[in-house]
């Protein structure tokens, strides 16, 4: 592992200012992405995982707004740049999108245009970033990309429309499009959620082999702990806009610290379970972002809640060793008595 991360996010804050109030979709998120590694961001709906990646690329939809924090991108032979300071519509930002950081969306049917052939859509990305290359060269490159992502008969598929392709093939087209400008960072936002398990296995396998061949760094956004366990090197667990725990994948699954991570891991159904066995549950449901609980956002559902502390103050994400960080008062020095009670 090289000494500097490719992408360093510090205290990222994104809010949505609406008539009903301000929603802190992302609240002081900090994490690093290391070269050639996979960072998994996991959480349930409304936890801010997708907004985090949209903030990194500065493609937030109104009324979303980057409200604070730093996003440092390290590039070869150039000084690091803070993406958060760039003009979202400026030239430099447009150069980063696609060329440095590319994004794969969740729903391949809605993110591909229905009016153009897949070949047209991929070539367009190539021509926008490199207008001098010419149509013929762009088509050649498109064919090579389709071959790279394992689409059978690319010479035929290149002239087909998205509706002629299955979900798995469409997701492969999305990946080909994302790779068209040789990005160093690939963000995959729920890349396999809409797919069947066998197709999911194919797509995850493809992402892994592309990562090995091209040294890509991957940010994988998902709600599926199974996908995280299979793919990630490092994991950030999010709940209601905050990173509650961050650490190496082995730590997260075998020595989880935060009560939410622990409860989440216990509540996932497993193919290894005894038939007709009940699952452990987390009481209640995820609060609506408008009425985020005061203090630690997880405290109303937390079994280890400290009265007078968790419902008043918000714990900061604090390192507990070189690799792991947790935002929970159970692990902070000022709550020494509680530490003894932890399992």
């Amino acid at each position, binding site marked *: 592992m090289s000494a500097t991360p490719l992408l360093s996010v510090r205290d990222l804050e994104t809010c949505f200012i609406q008539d009903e109030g301000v929603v802190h979709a992302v609240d002081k998120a900090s994490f690093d992405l290391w070269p050639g590694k996979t960072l998994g961001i996991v959480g*349930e*709906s409304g936890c801010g995982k997708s907004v985090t990646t949209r903030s990194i690329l500065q493609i937030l939809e109104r009324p979303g707004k980057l409200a604070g924090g730093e996003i440092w991108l390290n590039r070869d032979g150039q000084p690091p740049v803070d993406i958060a300071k760039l003009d979202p519509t400026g030239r430099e930002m447009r150069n980063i999108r696609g060329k440095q950081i590319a994004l794969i969306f969740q729903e391949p049917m809605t993110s591909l245009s229905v009016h153009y052939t897949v070949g047209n859509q991929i070539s367009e990305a190539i021509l926008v970033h490199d207008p001098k290359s010419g149509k013929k060269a762009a088509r050649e490159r498109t064919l090579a990309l389709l071959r790279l992502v394992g689409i*059978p008969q690319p010479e035929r598929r290149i002239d087909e429309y998205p509706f002629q392709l*299955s979900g*798995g093939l469409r997701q492969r087209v999305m990946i080909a499009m994302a790779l068209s400008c040789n990005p160093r960072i690939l963000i995959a936002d729920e890349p396999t959620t809409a797919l*069947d*398990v*066998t*197709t*999911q*296995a*194919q797509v*995850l*396998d493809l992402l892994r082999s592309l990562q090995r061949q091209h040294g890509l760094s991957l940010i994988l956004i998902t*709600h*599926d*702990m*199974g*996908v*995280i*366990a*299979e793919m*990630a090197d490092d994991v950030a667990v999010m709940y209601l806009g905050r990173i509650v725990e961050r650490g190496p*994948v*082995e730590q997260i*699954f*075998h020595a989880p610290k935060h009560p939410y991570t622990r*409860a*989440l*891991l216990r*509540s*996932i*159904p*497993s*193919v*290894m*379970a*005894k*038939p*007709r*066995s*009940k*699952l*452990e*549950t*987390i009481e209640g*449901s*995820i609060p609506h972002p408008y009425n985020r609980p005061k203090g630690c956002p997880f405290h109303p559902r937390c079994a280890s809640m400290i009265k007078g502390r968790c419902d008043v103050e918000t714990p900061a994400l604090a390192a507990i060793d070189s690799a792991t960080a947790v935002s929970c008062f159970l692990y902070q020095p000022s709550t020494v008595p509680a530490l003894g009670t932890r399992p």
Partner: protein
Amino acid sequence: MSNVLEVEQLKKHFPIRRGFLRRLVGAVKAVDGVDLTIKRGETLSLVGESGCGKTTVSRCIVRALKPTSGVIRFRPSDGPHTDVARLDRRGLAATRQHMQMIFQDPFSSLNPRMMVGDIIAEPLLVNGVGTASSRRARVEELLDLVKLPKAYLNRFPHAFSGGQRQRIGIARALALNPTLVVADEPVSALDVSVQAQIVNLMLELQERLGLSYLFVAHDLSVVKHMSDRVAVMYVGRIVEEAPTDELFNTPRHPYTEALLSAVPKPDPRRRTERIILKGEVADPANAPSGCSFHPRCRYATEQCRVDVPVAQMIAPNHKVACHHAATLRLTGVAS
């Protein structure tokens, strides 16, 4: 134990018509000869990838679709059975009281203009059960059963989260004391932490009320928690059926093996080599010759390309449709 439901040789073919005269040019064989039984108080899960026909089977059973051929024997009480496939309108109305559905999407399956109390009372009203006050009492009882406060009676669905809405949908399904509940992907639209609550609720209700479930799902880990027996479907046919543990531990059909292998295991120490199935689910309008799984099967031989395998009992309660089931040694999830 008596059988609540016996399905024999169920077929549902959707015609494909082309041209000015709408001539019949072929058929999508969505369900092509399915046999299954559900015993009183048990859960049978139907699993498979999208397009395998599992939803079509469940829709034929509740007669939301009229089957092309086949027999659906339904026996709600100890009396004689009725063939749901042949019922007319009036007969259906009477029979449907005993079979109810829980739907996948809790956001589109509740009428946004009706209050929760009216939604749950609707099946009672339609079937002319009780008086206004007795219906109200029943609705309160049902809310209690699915662990929602009685005060929710007068609220509209938009005020509720996905999990709460799914509870309302379950309460509505139970209003008429059904024998059989057909649940089509009831938890796949929910968040993990809420999904666990609904799975537990369905298990509890089954014990308390002696319900029989037909559980249609694609998520094998949820299926493992819910079912007594599992049937795996591929392109309109059941390829394997066995008690849950047996199917997961010792699958006998290569497709089941591949499905189990593809499920991501929530443990980074178990990153093993997976069986990656090539290609995609075959088109039911144009199914491959012989065994429809043969183009993707790594054990396929010449026989598989020519002969359609017939389902046979390979062990007690374990049915497989594969020419090589007796000789193959396949890997399950326990090993």
